[in-house]
């Protein structure tokens, strides 16, 4: 099986802090990580590789430093990596990003052979849009399954466990297909020292706008129908009421009364 995993390098949003004086985001010193959900997608691919002959290729669109994210992927089971990088890609929204990725899929397939499965994280933890996976499927005219928690390969198709608001669903799709991955029941594996050293030595080829044969007017800001007009830090809640009566019983009673007065009980 030939699997492509699309990953994004993101700031570790758990490390982000707000400067209380300026009410702005402190980005300095925030480490970059492989987007959490993309890590789950990669692990799901590597688990298929654990069971059957499989090649896993990872791609990432981003600046030169995104090569570090790809190296991380190589250290935990990916076989090949390509960085999709060009100044023309900067400022892309989900439509432009998914278009560029769809061109990159075709370009990488020239080198690595056709992919049976394309895995993406459900969403990136910085943008939280969950749109690039389905839009990539649309550009490629592939079927899609979103929010997968597990993938089972069968003859010429895959079965997918999927998580929705109401519980679980089992879906099936013909191949090739795009599958987006949410948090599975298992944790991604850790690299060994040996695999880490090997990954660090890897040379990662860079594909530019010409190499993926993307139309420049469909990339970057030009190719993005949505524009960010304003960014602001949401107002923080202040003035909460602390309840501290003599006993737990009394505090609980006071809270219940407050909630009842607010019409919540």
């Amino acid at each position: 099986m030939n699997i492509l995993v699309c990953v994004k390098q993101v700031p570790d949003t758990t490390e982000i802090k707000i400067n209380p004086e300026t009410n702005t985001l402190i980005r300095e010193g925030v480490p970059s990580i492989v987007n959490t959900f993309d890590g789950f997608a990669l692990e799901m691919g590597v688990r298929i590789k654990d069971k059957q002959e499989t090649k896993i290729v990872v791609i990432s669109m981003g600046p030169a430093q995104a090569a570090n994210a790809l190296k991380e992927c190589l250290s935990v089971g990916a076989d090949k990596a390509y960085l999709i990088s060009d100044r023309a890609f900067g400022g892309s929204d989900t439509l432009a990003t998914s278009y560029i990725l769809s061109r990159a899929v075709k370009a990488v397939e020239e080198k690595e052979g056709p992919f049976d499965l394309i895995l993406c994280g459900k969403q990136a933890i910085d943008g939280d849009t969950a749109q690039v996976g389905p839009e990539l499927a649309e550009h490629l005219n592939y079927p899609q399954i979103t929010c997968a928690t597990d993938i089972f390969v069968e003859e010429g198709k895959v079965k997918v466990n999927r998580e929705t608001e109401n519980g679980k669903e089992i879906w099936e799709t013909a191949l090739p297909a795009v599958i987006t991955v949410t948090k599975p029941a298992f944790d991604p594996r850790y690299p060994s020292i040996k695999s880490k050293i090997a990954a660090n030595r890897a040379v990662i080829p860079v594909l530019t706008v010409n190499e993926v044969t993307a139309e420049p007017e469909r990339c970057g800001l030009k190719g993005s129908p949505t524009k960010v007009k304003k960014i602001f830090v949401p107002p923080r809640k202040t003035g909460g009421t602390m309840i501290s009566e003599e006993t737990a019983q009394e505090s609980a009673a006071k809270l219940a009364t407050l909630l009842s007065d607010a019409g919540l009980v």
Partner: protein
Amino acid sequence: MEGYKNIWVWIETSDGEARGVGLELLTQGRKVADAVGESLVAVVIADDATKAAKAAIAYGADQVIVLQDTRFAMYETEAFAAGFCHLAKKYKPNTVLFGATTMGRDLAPRISCRLRTGLTADCTGVDMNAETGHVQWTRPTFGGNLMAVIECPNTRPQMGTVRPGVFKKGVMDAGRSAEIIQETIAELPTGRAKLIEQIKETAEGMVSLEDAEIIVSGGRGLGDPSRFALIQALAEALGGAMGSSRAAVDAGWISHVHQVGQTGKTVTPKLYVACGISGAIQHLAGMSGSDTIVAINKDPDAPIFGVADYGIVGNLLEIVPALTEEVKRLKAEKA
């Protein structure tokens, strides 16, 4: 951009009934439509659209476009996308609102991409700038640490998925009447990716997290998985659903369907009670939009108190059962 008019709301259905979020969006869709003097149109794609169309009219749609076909009995991304695009190409809507449900977020990007237009994800604000005609889409980003205002100035329709629970359903008026347009489609792509089996996990009598108006969540501060019984008891007394932090899920104490937060669910109930949850930023990302937040924790410095409307510092093993009893007593008094 010429020739595009009216505000569309996609009415998602479940077993033939309109899901709540579509009806909520009719409330805000009305404001958006009135701001530019256009009509509010509900779109129903289903094998039997009767009930959902009726509900859409009762909740304020000026017109309903129905695409009814047995091939829509089960949700399939490609069939629904083809059906919706067929309607959108014919009627050219100005704005389209989808609920940011699993289904809405599966479907909408497929449509916006095919129409080569902009889609803004998981919005918590939808306001029409009447001067420019561009919707101002407000959405949380960076795990809720930042808010962004997005617009789609050069292409139509302008599209967005909107978080359930942000807008409230209007008052139902069963006596309202509105035009229903029946549409058909000949060719439909079906069968590549399809649903095989559905396993509903929501326990009998318990509401799902996304639909719950009240949520009681437990975290590692419970100290022991068996103590989720205390959380469940309070949730039941309040008539709500049970949630949890990631730490409790990772510890194997409770299933992931209950997880609230960045790698779990985003919820916006009227009341959120966090018990033994410190309030890591990933958890706050999933619940800080709740109307009223209660925090019960032994650590007075826990960040959860920073977003709480009411807080109690103390032993939750004493407080939670006492609160459950008080709630039951107050409810009995009111009954």
